[in-house]
């Protein structure tokens, strides 16, 4: 909770609100600079912020806390990743929104429940897509956060960005565990891929 609040305080409130509102209005992706998830600097930013967040995670040696500790770490990793996207993508806003809903549901005056349902569902041109393709697109839309009702091209764009971000997340977290344990474990195996 404390770590979430500290991240919320990082940006001024008005700036944050503007991001939330205008994020849904922005449809023309060409005008928005994209996050380069492959760059080393992005990964370093992510690693540093993740360590900051991990510092605040409760650490208790008891077995009962293992599950909640894992949950907190997973959520912190996702939250830091989503924040780094700076509101440019739907999946990142959806991650933050769902975490906010879970944690602050009782305290928040402005209900953010409509966050992911804000866009009008765009109808697919049905003659273009076969049922199998539609089914696979639906599967994909369930995997990418916040993309259940977006149009097919939107979905592909979100998925593209989401995959790049996830890869960075894996690289960064792998590097972190290597720092502590020592011997390298080959995950994605890409150190020269920036």
């Amino acid at each position, binding site marked *: 909770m404390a770590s979430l609040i500290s991240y919320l305080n990082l940006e001024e409130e008005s700036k944050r609100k503007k991001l939330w509102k205008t994020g849904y209005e922005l449809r023309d992706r060409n005008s928005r600079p994209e996050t380069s998830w492959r760059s080393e600097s992005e990964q370093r930013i992510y690693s540093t912020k993740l360590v900051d967040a991990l510092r605040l995670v409760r650490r208790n040696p008891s077995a009962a806390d293992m599950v909640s500790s894992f949950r907190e770490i997973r959520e912190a990793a996702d939250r830091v990743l989503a924040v780094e996207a700076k509101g440019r993508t739907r999946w990142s806003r959806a991650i933050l929104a769902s975490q906010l809903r879970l944690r602050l549901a009782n305290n928040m005056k402005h209900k953010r429940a409509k966050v992911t349902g804000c866009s009008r569902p765009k109808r697919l041109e049905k003659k273009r897509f076969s049922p199998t393709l539609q089914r696979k697109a639906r599967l994909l839309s369930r995997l990418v956060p916040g993309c259940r009702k977006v149009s097919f091209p939107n979905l*592909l764009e979100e998925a593209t960005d989401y995959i790049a971000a996830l890869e960075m997340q894996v690289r960064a977290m792998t590097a972190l565990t290597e720092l502590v344990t020592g011997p390298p474990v080959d995950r994605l195996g890409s150190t020269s891929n920036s």
Partner: protein
Amino acid sequence: MSSRRSRTRQPGCSRISDDQINDLVSKLQQLLPEIRDRRSDKVSAGNVLQETCNYIRSLHKEVDDLSERLSELLASTDTAQAAIIRSLLKQK
């Protein structure tokens, strides 16, 4: 490229061009290690979608495993935290 201004049969729905879709599909294709390594041009959109789903699922699993590992490491000793932070600071 804005194709929204062209006439559409369905009012309120933007026309999605074939080129746009193919472009996005091929961009996605480039990201997928399975398909990229196979170096085959005969990859259907359905294939790409399927591989995308599989890849995202496997990435999710990786992150879960890494989270669990980190949680074990952090729980085991307090000095682990200090070690992480020190190493990160050294890299700068």
